[in-house]
């Protein structure tokens, strides 16, 4: 029997890129279907209106909304379309997906993250599960990501450092702002370990990409030099160059068609002109980011999949994860420091901060409770977007500010000190009230039911988030920062999403097997963050890349090895 392609990959972000790259390099024909357009470095500019205020790189919320269910104060649930609320759950709809717009704060998971249930036991109200693989199984692929995507950093020893097979990072750290050494100094005084944060950013030209231009606008912006290790720049361009990979942009996959045996027979999509198309492949790989992956499965019932593809156990979309945590900030007023230090702090924030603390990756603090999982604290520049920074000054103590008082406040904000932000990451515990279903009435512009997302959270997320944010705030104070605030919130960060199709050895409690193949569908793999039963306490991208490389090797093997 002949097929259009050996492998069809749906979605082109961090989950899809490694599969397309690995399979094409092994000599298999690959088709990548991407809903958004194919933009390249020459299309990317530092335009705050385009990227961040008009969101032109994500789907139009009028045409493609989500419906979000939030808990009310009375314990009930209320729902609203994101077209009404403006709360955007899209993260980048173009070739390369949201990896185009990441900050590239790259952390590996740690061995403990693969067996939280065994190490810390169960948590009331949460469905914590061990992973079916161990850190050792994934380590070679974390290493592979360092070399293929290009991860820069500098290794130091610290109590929670994960083991690694290679001495150091393949690329030295990106350039750093002078503020970083003052973080090191404060952490030293507090007996904390200031870790140079690894970044998926090339400090100089390599891997046929240009190095970082240090122009200060990185996260939320697509990279105009190719230094950022997006799936597009780092993998898909090279996959296409093999001659075995074809990318079809503006192709919205609407349904996956399966037969009487439960096997996938075709993928249905709408092309740029709204024409319905069919394509088939020996193996189908879905990587649309957790929410849209679950939605596509639920929108694809078949003779053996009445409740949606791979959903006979009603597990698709369940145990959705975001990232728990908190945040904070403080300002180092120039007037407070010596002229020499003030001049350093005033330097343009193009070079990065690149610092993290993981001293509380496990919290062993009797005042906080039993020994438990904690997380990571990252130090970052305040995002430079000037319109966003200015508009945050509009709110006064009583009512809106305008006129000269507003201008004074804006001027002081921009001119009198440098801000330093902390972002704390902890586990978003999997709970029964965080999941994806199909909305019964709201449809997108193709007439397909949109994802309905219930975003309940476990109170532990908040407790740990507060704890970590306060620890980060203490470092800011030690540095001499003023106006230090720290907080945690229950609302999900929409750019950090995983889970929904957890992997495991038991088909009764998991959607995917240990190789991320659907238990119920022999020719279906899922390689975005959906597989994760627990998310770890770091941003997900490195782990998604690493796991997708691991799964890709499995697919090569299933197809008969390198051609």
């Amino acid at each position, binding site marked *: 029997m002949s097929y259009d392609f050996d492998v069809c990959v749906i979605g082109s972000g961090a989950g899809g890129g490694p599969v397309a790259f690995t399979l094409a390099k092994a000599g298999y024909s690959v088709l990548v279907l991407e809903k958004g357009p194919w933009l390249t470095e020459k299309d990317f500019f530092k335009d705050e209106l385009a990227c961040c205020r008009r969101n032109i790189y994500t789907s139009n919320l009028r045409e493609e909304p989500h419906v979000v269910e939030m808990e009310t104060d009375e314990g009930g649930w209320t729902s609203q379309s994101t077209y009404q609320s403006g709360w955007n759950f899209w993260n980048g709809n173009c070739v390369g997906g949201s990896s185009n717009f990441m900050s590239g704060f790259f952390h590996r998971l740690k061995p403990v993250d693969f067996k939280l249930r065994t190490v810390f036991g169960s948590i009331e109200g949460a469905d914590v599960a061990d992973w079916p693989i161990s850190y050792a199984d994934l380590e070679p692929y974390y290493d592979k990501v360092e070399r293929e995507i290009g991860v820069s950093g500098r290794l130091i020893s610290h109590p929670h450092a994960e083991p690694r097979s290679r001495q150091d990072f393949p690329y030295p750290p990106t350039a750093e702002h002078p503020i970083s050494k003052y973080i090191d100094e404060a952490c030293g005084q507090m007996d904390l370990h200031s870790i140079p944060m690894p970044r998926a950013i090339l400090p100089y030209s390599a891997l046929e990409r240009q190095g970082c231009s240090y122009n200060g606008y990185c996260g939320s912006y697509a990279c105009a030099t190719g230094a950022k290790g997006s799936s597009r720049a780092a993998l898909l361009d090279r996959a296409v160059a093999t001659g075995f990979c074809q990318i079809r942009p503006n192709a919205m996959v609407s349904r996956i068609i399966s037969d009487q045996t439960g096997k996938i027979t075709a993928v249905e999509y709408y092309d740029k002109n709204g024409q319905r198309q069919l394509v088939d492949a020996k193996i189908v790989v879905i990587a649309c980011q957790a929410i849209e992956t679950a939605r596509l499965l639920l929108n694809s019932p078949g003779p053996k999949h009445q409740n949606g593809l791979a959903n006979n156990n009603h597990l698709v979309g369940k145990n959705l994860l975001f990232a728990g945590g908190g945040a904070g900030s403080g300002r180092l007023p120039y007037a407070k420091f010596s002229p020499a230090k003030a001049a350093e702090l005033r330097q343009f924030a193009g070079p990065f901060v690149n610092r993290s603390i993981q001293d509380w990756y496990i919290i062993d603090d009797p005042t906080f409770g039993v020994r438990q999982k904690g997380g990571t604290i990252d130090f970052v520049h305040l995002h430079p977007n000037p319109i966003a920074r200015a508009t945050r000054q509009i709110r006064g103590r009583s009512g809106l500010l305008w*006129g000269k008082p507003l*201008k004074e406040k804006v*001027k002081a904000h921009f001119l009198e000190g440098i801000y330093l932000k902390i972002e704390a990451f902890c586990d978003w515990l999997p709970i029964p009230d965080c999941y994806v279903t199909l909305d019964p009435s709201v449809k997108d512009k193709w007439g397909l039911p949109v994802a309905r997302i219930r975003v309940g959270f476990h109170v532990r997320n908040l407790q740990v988030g507060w704890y970590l944010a306060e620890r980060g705030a203490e470092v800011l104070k030690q540095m001499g920062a003023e106006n230090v605030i720290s907080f945690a919130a229950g609302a999900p960060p929409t750019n950090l999403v995983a889970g929904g199709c957890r992997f495991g050895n038991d088909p009764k409690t998991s959607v995917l097997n240990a190789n991320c193949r659907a238990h119920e569908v022999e020719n279906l793999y899922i390689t975005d963050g959906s597989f994760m039963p627990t998310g770890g306490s770091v941003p997900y991208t490195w782990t998604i890349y690493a796991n997708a490389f691991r799964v890709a090797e499995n697919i090569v093997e299933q197809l008969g090895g390198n051609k």
Partner: protein
Amino acid sequence: MNRRSFLIQTGSTITATSTLFSLNIDAATLSNLQTIQGAWLSQQQWQTLAVVQEHLFPSESDAPGAKEIQATHYLNVMLTHPKSDATERDLIKNGIVQIDKIAQDSYSKYFTLLSTEQREAVLRHLETEKSGKQWIRLLLEYIFEALLSDPIYGGNPNGIGWKWLAHQPGFPAPPKNKRYYLL
């Protein structure tokens, strides 16, 4: 009052009473408003809008105000480009109608003819209503966009806003043919 007689009246107001009831609009700006701005607002409404913007973001000797950053022109660009939204034009328009109604009810005058203190009182009055507060907030956000977005969008001429706040813009800067609403 027809449009023409209104223009004549306000024109004479500018020359005769500018020290007392300054419109804060110079002749060039006024002419600009009359010829360039879209027909979705009347001339009177354009002037009210410009005066509100200058009240919210006044010019200072050492800092640009709404006039210098071309806030009115910028707002018109944003509300009339190919992908702009008629509902937002209506929103802006309704606020202007509201402003002049409060001015008439309280002082029996157009907003443009009020003193600075009276204008402040009208805007604070408007702020007490939820929709009024949203309207003022929206205008302030457009003002900050005119202050700090790339000059290709019609505000921030020669980077005047960036210079005021010692802000270094990113690069590559967007070229005119890549304005977001053309993509």
